[in-house]
């Protein structure tokens, strides 16, 4: 068991990559390739379940991270293959491994051209995404961070819709330029601490042993923050998102919204708060304002979208605003809520994109006005859609509610006006999602073509229903998730609390 504990993270991270490499060798028989990709991603998911199940075991290194591996990779500069997870990254890893097989399923029929390339890219993307969440060496982190970019851009650019090239290039350039600032900050840290190791840098910063830090800290904070803010995306860096989403293939959208955006909020939590608590506190006011603008603006723009996928994309801007609000409220409830919204959003928005993709495959359009009264030809589809919409809106007992409730209570603790403005976001989200639902599903069938639309098929059910189930379980028993999250967020807040105590003490 000991060796399994030691190697499980490496396994989970690299099994998809190994699968992708094997896929290269496989002959171009589409069916075999699909099955192979499904098996690989399911295997990864099963392996990743080991992580939460045995999470309570005592740590074998004293750094607060589980399943840690730390072995030298490159001696000069000293780069270590240092991976490990805590309560923050645990569930994001599982979210990634959970969504990938569903992406394979939802692409079963919709991708029929260059199938091999598609699944190779998808599996490489999974490895890169997991790598981002488990890396504890800044260099390794940057490595995986950039590595997510290429498969995603290619997925959008090759398998996307009409304006795919524009969207892919815009996505690539936006995030690439932003992450250059992060690279500069990482290099600065390396030059002045002599290590890339996250834990070591954190210890050095807390001990005050880094020369020139006080002058540079603000710039370093901003360097990291810009890279993460573009990824989240925080208003006003969000303009790449609607284009990328609308043009991406369904599986691309699911992973983009479900996991890629969380890389940004995860980064804020891990690096901005973890390394620069003081600067986080100083800069919190304007960041919170941006988050609030994102919540309200995203929701308002979503409301007027004629395009279903764009609507869901803007709803992501709004929901991720909640996450940032929760993080920068610096309260236990806020942080827990932020984490929970990340997971809930991954599950329910992922499912929404899948459902939108199902419609697109049948009618080749996302325009809401092209539909109407779909509830009668597609009852199962309509029911599934409603379930997910309600989860996303934040109906109690479903997953959206728990996270938003926690974030808002955290925001109220920090400042009442934050909570009040944030709470309007919940109302807006009900407006745009339910209104969209009404226009698409209720009333009479407005276009004759829609009468003959097929209901959900087997593969589509297999992709969507696990999300619905997860949404229900997360809503009913959030404690399963929060039990691991809570201790970590608690310790993440300790340096912030100490700082406040110091300020009060003076």
């Amino acid at each position: 068991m000991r060796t399994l504990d030691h190697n499980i993270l490496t396994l989970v991270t690299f099994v998809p990559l190994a699968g992708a490499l094997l896929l290269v060798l496989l002959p171009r028989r589409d069916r075999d390739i699909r099955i192979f990709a499904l098996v690989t991603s399911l295997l990864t998911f099963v392996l990743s379940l080991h992580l939460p199940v045995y999470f309570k075991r005592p740590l074998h290194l004293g750094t607060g991270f589980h399943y840690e591996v730390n072995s030298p990779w490159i001696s000069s500069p000293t780069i270590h293959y240092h991976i490990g997870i805590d309560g923050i990254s645990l569930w994001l890893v599982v979210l990634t491994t959970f969504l990938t097989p569903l992406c394979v399923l939802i692409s079963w029929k919709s991708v029929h051209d260059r199938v091999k390339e598609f699944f190779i890219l998808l599996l490489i993307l999974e490895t890169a995404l997991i790598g981002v969440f488990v890396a504890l060496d800044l260099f390794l982190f940057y490595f995986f961070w950039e590595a997510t970019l290429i498969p995603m851009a290619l997925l959008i650019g090759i398998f996307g819709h009409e304006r795919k090239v524009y969207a892919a290039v815009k996505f690539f350039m936006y995030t690439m330029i932003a992450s250059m600032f992060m690279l500069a900050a990482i290099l600065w840290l390396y030059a002045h601490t002599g290590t890339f190791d996250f834990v070591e840098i954190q210890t050095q910063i807390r001990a005050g042993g880094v020369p020139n830090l006080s002058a540079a800290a603000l710039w370093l904070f901003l360097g990291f923050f810009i890279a993460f803010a573009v990824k989240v995306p925080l208003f006003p860096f969000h303009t790449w998102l609607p284009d990328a989403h609308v043009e991406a293939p369904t599986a691309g959208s699911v992973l983009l919204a479900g996991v890629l955006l969380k890389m940004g909020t995860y980064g804020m939590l891990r690096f901005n708060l973890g390394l620069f608590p003081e600067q986080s506190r100083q800069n919190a006011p304007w960041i919170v304002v941006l988050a609030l603008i994102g919540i309200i603006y995203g929701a308002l723009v979503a409301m007027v979208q004629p395009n279903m996928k764009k609507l869901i994309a803007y709803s992501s801007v709004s929901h991720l605003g909640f996450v940032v609000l929760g993080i920068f409220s610096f309260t236990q409830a806020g942080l827990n809520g932020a984490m929970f919204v990340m997971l809930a959003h991954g599950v329910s928005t992922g499912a929404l994109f899948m459902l939108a993709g199902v419609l697109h495959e049948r009618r080749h359009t996302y325009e809401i006005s092209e539909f109407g009264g779909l509830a009668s030809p597609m009852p199962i589809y309509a029911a599934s859609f409603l379930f997910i919409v309600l989860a996303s809106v934040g109906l109690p007992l479903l997953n959206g509610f728990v996270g938003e409730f926690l974030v808002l209570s955290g925001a109220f603790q920090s400042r009442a006006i934050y909570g009040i403005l944030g709470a309007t976001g919940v109302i807006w989200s009900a407006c745009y999602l339910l209104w969209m639902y009404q226009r698409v599903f209720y009333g009479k069938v407005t276009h004759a073509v829609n009468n003959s639309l097929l209901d959900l098929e087997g593969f589509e059910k297999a992709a969507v229903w696990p999300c619905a189930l997860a949404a229900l379980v997360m809503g009913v028993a959030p404690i399963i998730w929060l039990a691991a999250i809570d201790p970590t967020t608690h310790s993440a807040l300790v340096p912030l609390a100490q700082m406040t105590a110091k300020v009060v003490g003076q």
Partner: protein
Amino acid sequence: MITPLVAQVIPQAGEYVRILPELVLSLFGILIMLLDPLMDEQRGQKTLGLIGFIGTLAGLLATWYMSQSPGLAFSNSIQIDGFSAFFHVLVIAIAALVILSSYEYLAVQHIRAGEYYALILFGTVGMGLMSSAVELVLIFIALEISSISTYILAGFRRYQAASTESSLKYFLLGSFATAFFLYGVAMMFGATGSTNIDKISRYLQSNGVPLLVYIGTALMFVGLGFKLAAAPLHVWTPDVYEGAPAPVVGFMSTAPKAAAFAVLLRIVFAINEPAHFWPVWVAAALSMTIGNLGALVQTNVKRLLAYSSIAHAGYLLVAFAMTTPENWPNGIAAAMFYAAAYAAMNVGAFAVVGHFANAGEQYVTLEDYEGLGRSSPLLAAVLTIFLLSLIGIPITGGFFAKFYVFSAALRANLIWLTLIGVVNSAIGAYYYLRIIVVMYMREPRKQVPVSRVSFGVGTALAVCTFATIYLGIFPNRVLHYAQQSAQNVMPVHVAGSPTSTAEIPAIPRSRP
């Protein structure tokens, strides 16, 4: 009875070992020249190419043998150490890869010429000599040997006006630039009374740095900057690269650059006045910016890669951002690593371009690359790896190359230069990405025939791909070796340098 004075001048047998690679390559070059008239057109080409390739392999072997006996030779005009061995391996390996990829190219272009391979070997002799010479006059001669070969190589598609233009332009401007170098050498001699880098360094150490030395260095920098294609001496690059045969461009955008860089490193550190490095920094910043901005608007892939090579010369020059002696080995090692990584990806990229260009180099615009990902997935995938490496994406050698260079600059607190470099890499990403986008995301508008990849090109591509990925995942070995040999370039008087006891000819072997 030989007088002691004469005995000093007559080289000993052991000294010839220290130019063994040059001797071997020259012999093979001459052999090719002799055999060329005896061969018939069809089969001769292949045989001569094979001889050339064997020549480079023998050259590599000779380099290994040479590196076993480090030290000075020929009245202290040649210094064999880890540093020169590194660049020998680099330029000879580049020559070998270029010969491999030229094999098919020459047949497709109907260029009949055995001397093509001979010229590549002679050029390599010059570049090898550049990296081991520590005597300015010898450096000049080596520079000329390498330049004259490449001038001729650039004009090998002689029925194409563009190629002739390329050759002539390169020749006229190049000879002008080397004249500057010679003038700089003369100034150096006037100021210090010697043309030996080691002696110059000692003289400056004890007597201070006179103004004439700065002028001399600046003039030499003009000569070398031309070879490096560093702004503002870059203007020739796009036209010359566009006209020259694609494999030759792969050759002359990497090997002479590496050699010129080796010379520049030796000279600049001998002068040892880091405060006056700023012209190099300015050239670095200008090259990166001009190269990347210029590449943005290109539609011809060869021109695009020409501008990209200007930009990469800029990144390389950032490695000179060393303000204190402790930083020097870092910078030198970063530069050496960069030269190696750049060679792997650029030779590979031009091999693909050369293969794809077809007879008369018809297919070299971005439009021709549309849909290559579908019609020739393997070729497109390989080119994508090289382009990603040129962008500097992780898992490729280009990433670590940029990374080392920028961290060397940051450690020297040259934040502005690093920022310019970082912003430039982001700009650079755009145009490399354009090629990838065109290959994978557009449907072909015209029918471009893609011929089967021949064995030679295939091998060259496989080696380049392997090297690019290897440097991206295990950069350790090469970097470690570079760091050790960086010590050899350090001027004699810098503390901690192993060459500080310069009287002894044997320099500690530096193998990892």
